[in-house]
Structure formats: C-alpha cells, structure tokens
C-alpha cells in the first residue's frame, strides 16, 4: 500500500480570523502563526537563526539573548511553580546556544486579587533558581491587570549569556549522520500539570521535570563534547522539537520509538487521555545532536549528571531532504511524525 501524499499548497493562516488556543499549543497552528505572521513582521538575520536564543555580536563578544512568557496553570504544581519554570526556561534557552547564563530579567503581570503571599513564594523560587545557576535577576517590571484580565500571574523572563567557546551550536550545525540523543524521560511536565487541573482529578506522583539544563550543558562543553545542536523540549514535546529542527536544518531524521524513555505513570495518564507522550510538554529535557564519534563521551558526562541519568541515543540524522521525521516502531514500521494541529485535546472516542 502506498498512501504517501504530498501537501500541494499550504493552508492559509487566515482561516481562523481570531487567535484560538491551538495557536499557542506548540503544534502546526503555532508554527504557521510564527512563520507567516511573526517572523516576517520582525524579519532580521538573528531571528533567522531559528534557535532558542539569538546569538549576537556585541563589541566583539558573542552573547546569547532569549525571552519567554510563562502562563502555566496551576501556578504551583508538583516539581515546581511558575517562578522556577520562568527562570529555568530562560536558562535553558541560553544553554541551548552553549552560553553561560549571566543575567536575567523578569516582567510580572499580576492579576488583581492575587495573594501577596503567593507572589512572595514565586519570587523566592525565581531567585533560588537564578542563584543556583550562578545568575541573578538584575532588572524587572511589575504590572497589575484587572480581575478577569489575567490568570493570577504571568511572567516573562529574558536572559543574557556569554558564549565562551568557538562552536556554532544550533540548527545550522546539524550534519548528516549525527546521532540524536535525549537527556531523559519525557512527558512529565505535561502530565504533572494536567493531573492538577480542575476537572480531571488525577492522583499521581508524577513531578514536573522542570530543571535548569545550563549546568549539564556546561559539563558537556567542559568535557570537550563537540555539540552540533541542542534544543530543550517544551510545548509540543519531543515531536515538536525534532520536527522543528528537521524543518529548519533541512535534514530528514529518524527516531527509534523504543529508545525513548517514558515512565509508566506518564504512559498511564497518556492512555487515559488519548495522548501521545511524544507530544506532551517537558521543561527540563533536551535533544542533543553530535557526531557519532563523540556519543560515548557525551553519554558518560550525561549519565554522571542527575539531569542526564536516563540519557539515550534515540535516533539519527539522515540525508538532506525535506526535513521529514520518521518514527520506527518495534514492528519495524516507520511512520511519519507529524506536528499535531493545535494542542492535544483529551480524546474520548
């Protein structure tokens, strides 16, 4: 049977005249929004790096610069809170360029009625995460919005890092034959969040994987691992991260489904909801691209670090092509890995 069909023309973004949740879900609708609206509007060579942080030349130094908004619900969840998330997420984006994080900023958008005590907890947790990484929040801003115009607290963090090596870590560094490594098990953040949501009412011991990867990346660089590309897994999960890199680098890739670590509890929650763990959000995992020759060294460093204990080779980069990603399953069947449209919605039928 041959059901291989090509997209003839892309669907226009204009079909939804309004933003819907799917535009933020890490899936294809979000990609389209970025590719057709945001990137063209801001067009510049730095954005074209299409990486987690922009790498900038400032007075002869190579700096990494990144920003992210955090809108997680609930604000406090097993394994972290919005403050830890906001700091770790930005540290991670800096680390994905191989930068040493130096300075952070934080802009808070607080909803009227938000408990001052909760705010204090979040700020403390931001500071703890920043300090643990040897950084500090050096500038900030606070806005208050009316009740019903927010969701307790939104945080936007930005970060500046210094690149002290000569590697060009990013999508452009990916090479044919590269090994694809994953730093640990996937899906924990998404499941921890969903379990806490009203209405679903799971009991679970699953904790978010929320963590700062910059230390681990630093170890890899120190050990001399020549990293070609890094990407932290966030919205859209492992699938979205690898698909983005395949598209941006133009290389076909193949992943080995059996090699991807997923804990039983995450798998169980996904079964109930009809989710695919490959698409579930993470906040402390990354994929790493490198020559096959340095994989053993990298795994040694990874396995020695608490955040890389379960690291594994999960696939390899194929030939230059159209940036397709295949997922080989236990039966030897390769299926096309595709971005979900918007967010994954729990299935019932």
């Amino acid at each position: 049977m041959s059901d291989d069909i090509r997209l003839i023309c892309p669907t226009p973004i204009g079909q939804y005249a309004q933003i819907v949740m799917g535009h933020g879900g890490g899936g294809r609708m979000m990609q389209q929004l970025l590719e057709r609206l945001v990137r063209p509007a801001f067009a510049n060579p730095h954005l074209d790096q299409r990486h987690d942080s922009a790498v900038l030349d400032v007075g002869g130094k190579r700096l990494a610069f990144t920003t992210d908004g955090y809108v997680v619900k609930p604000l406090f969840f097993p394994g972290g809170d919005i403050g830890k998330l906001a700091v770790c997420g930005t540290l991670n984006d800096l680390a994905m360029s191989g930068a040493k994080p130096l300075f952070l900023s934080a802009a808070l958008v607080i909803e009227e009625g938000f408990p001052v005590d909760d705010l204090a907890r979040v700020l403390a947790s931001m500071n703890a995460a920043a300090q643990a990484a040897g950084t500090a929040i050096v500038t900030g801003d606070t806005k208050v919005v009316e009740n019903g115009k927010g969701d307790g607290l939104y945080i936007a963090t930005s970060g500046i890092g210094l690149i002290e090596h000569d590697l060009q870590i990013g999508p452009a560094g990916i090479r044919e034959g590269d090994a694809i490594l994953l730093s640990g098990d996937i899906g924990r953040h998404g499941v921890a969040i969903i379990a806490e949501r009203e209405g679903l009412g799971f009991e679970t011991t699953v904790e978010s994987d929320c963590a700062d990867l910059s230390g681990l990346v630093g170890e890899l660089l120190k050990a001399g691992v020549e990293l070609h590309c890094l990407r932290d897994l966030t919205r859209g999960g492992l699938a979205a991260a690898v698909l983005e890199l395949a598209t941006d680098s133009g290389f076909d890739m193949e992943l080995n489904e059996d090699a991807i670590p997923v804990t039983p509890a995450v798998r169980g929650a996904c079964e109930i909801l009809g989710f695919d763990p490959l698409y579930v959000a993470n906040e402390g995992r990354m994929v790493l691209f490198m020559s096959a020759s340095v994989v053993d060294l990298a795994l040694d460093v990874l396995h020695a670090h608490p955040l890389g204990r379960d690291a594994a080779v999960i696939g390899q980069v194929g030939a230059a092509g159209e940036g397709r990603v295949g997922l080989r399953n236990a039966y030897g069947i390769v299926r096309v890995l595709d971005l979900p449209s918007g967010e994954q919605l729990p299935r019932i039928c």
Partner: protein
Amino acid sequence: MKYRDEYRDAASVKALADAIARRQTRPWTLMEVCGGQTHSIVKHGLDRLLPPSLSLIHGPGCPVCVTPETIIDHALELAARPDVIFCSFGDMLRVPGSKHDLLTVKAQGGDVRMVYSPLDALNLARENPERQVVFFAVGFETTAPTTAMAVLQAQRFGVRNFSLLVAHVRVPPAVETLLSAPDNRVDGLLAAGHVCAVMGYTEYEPIAASFHAPIVVTGFEPLDILRGVLSCVEQLEEGRSEVENRYGRAVTREGNRPAQALMKQVFEPITLSWRGLDAIADSGLGLRPEFADFDAVRRFRLSVPKTATTRPCRSGEVLTGRLRPCECPAFGTTCTPEHPLGATMVSSEGACAAYYRYRRNAA
C-alpha cells in the same frame, strides 16, 4: 501497563501477521467499524504488516465524525449563550458546524469546558447553580450508559440546571446500511470491542447471517486487531460468516446488563441522519419522554437549522469505505487537521486525520 503492553509485543505481532499471510489465499476487504481501531492500525502500521491483497477500510465508528452538522450547529448556538456552560469531550471541540467550531465559540468568549466524563459536567452543574450546564452527549453504545447515569443522578439529586444535547448513535443499524449498499466492497467486519463490552454481540448474529459476512468482535491493541483480522480471514477462507468474539477479556455474548438497563431506561432508538450518511432508522438514541426535561433542544427551544453542508467534503464516502482519504481531492490541501472540512479530518480517530498524521509524506 498490565493488560496493554503484553498485547503490543513485537514477536507476537510478527507471528500473527505471518499466520494471516499463511491463511490468506484470495484478496479480501475487511472493515474495522471503530475509529479507535483505525487509529491503532495506522499508528502502529499494522496494515503494512498485512499482505497487499488484504485491504482494511475504515468504518463509521467515530462519533466525532458522524455527528450531524445540524447538531454541531445546535452545540455552537448553546455554547455561545452567556447563561450556558457547555461541556464536551475534548475531541468534539474542533468539529466544524456550518459556520465554525466550538473552539471558535470559546475564543469568542463562550464558556466551553472540556470534560473527561459526563459526571464532571453534572458536578459543574451542582457547583454553578446559577448557570445552565449543557453536556454534549455524543458517542456509541459504550458512552450512552455513562450519559444515562448522569441523567439519573441529576434526577435523584434534583439538579435542575443540567441538560443534554444528545447525539448518541447505535452501531448495528449503520452496519446493516453499509452492508446493504449496492456498491458494498466489504467482505468481513471487525466489530467494535468496547461497544460490544456494553451491548454484547447478539445483535450482530442476524446481520452476519443475512449478509453472509463474518463479524469478529475485536479489541484495540495490535495483537487484538491482528487476531480479529486472522479470525475474519479464516472464516472467509472457510466460507463461514459467523459472529466470533476475539476480545474475550472484555466482552461477553450478553454484554453489560446493568449498563444496558440504565441506557434503555433513559434512551430510546430514533431515526438519525449521520454525517455523510442518509437517515437511518433506529440509528440514534433520544431521551425518552420521561426525561424530556433534560433535553437541551427543548429547554432552550432550539430550532432545527436550515443550513445544509455545501463543503466539498467526501467524508460520506470515506465513512462508508468507498473512498480512501488520500483519494479525496481536498485531502492535505484545503482539508487539514488545522482546518478540517469534514469530521473525518477532525477526530484524531477519523480516517482522514489518521492518514494525514501517519501516512502523509511517509519517510
């Protein structure tokens, strides 16, 4: 996960696929009725393990796909009302009505909630006595008992602000309709295991007999599906057309009696036009007159919309097995999961969506 991982074992899958290949001598076309099975087949690539002359075609067993557009329009109307909290299973949110979908209504400010169970909707009604809570009751005989229970609990507790937009459907009348079509290509059927867990499978016995088509009650894991296929092929090769149960760990011949009883207490069969199919007698479930108070159509005095679908969607043919998704000219071009033209592209279990996700540009 116990009773799941064992049924995905690679060596066993290979052995079963081999057994099917050994057993098959002629080309056969089988239909898996259930969208959940379609999903599993495409996700695991099971059809690629089968001989090329054994075709699997995808049946109408996805409530997301078959719910008529007129009812979706009712859903959109209710969801847009400021007094209503509209509750739906997640995968119904992206099904297009004649104008847009529930996600759009939500984006425009409608209070649309995703629930996991009808009982979650009932709880919302009890927690929000000043609002009207409407539950979008879609699904086959597997789901109808869960809705029936919500109605009976609402009645017991006197919850006055809870109602249902009912779009429940029944499998057997649809199967009969498919098999009686003049251009029917289906030689044998995989019956939906979870529907049968509730209903048993006595209903299918006269159908198998009168259409000379084997019907095999089949589960959802790779081994389950391949066992169903093997059983079907065996019967076809042997000229038999019986109902066989290959999902014995979950299904008995008589089914779940308490569930059947409550379902029958609350619902009665009605004639329904499935999306993509013509009206089929007894193929839907409606609230019995005693429960008419829980009918959202009645409570909110909804009129039957006059709109008719003018989209170039061929999901009717896809649902009846006369067209493969990739043969539809809109597939992957103007019709994608982001902007589905038809319900079969909306549901992740819909045939078009399953093809789009797993088969487009196969590496």
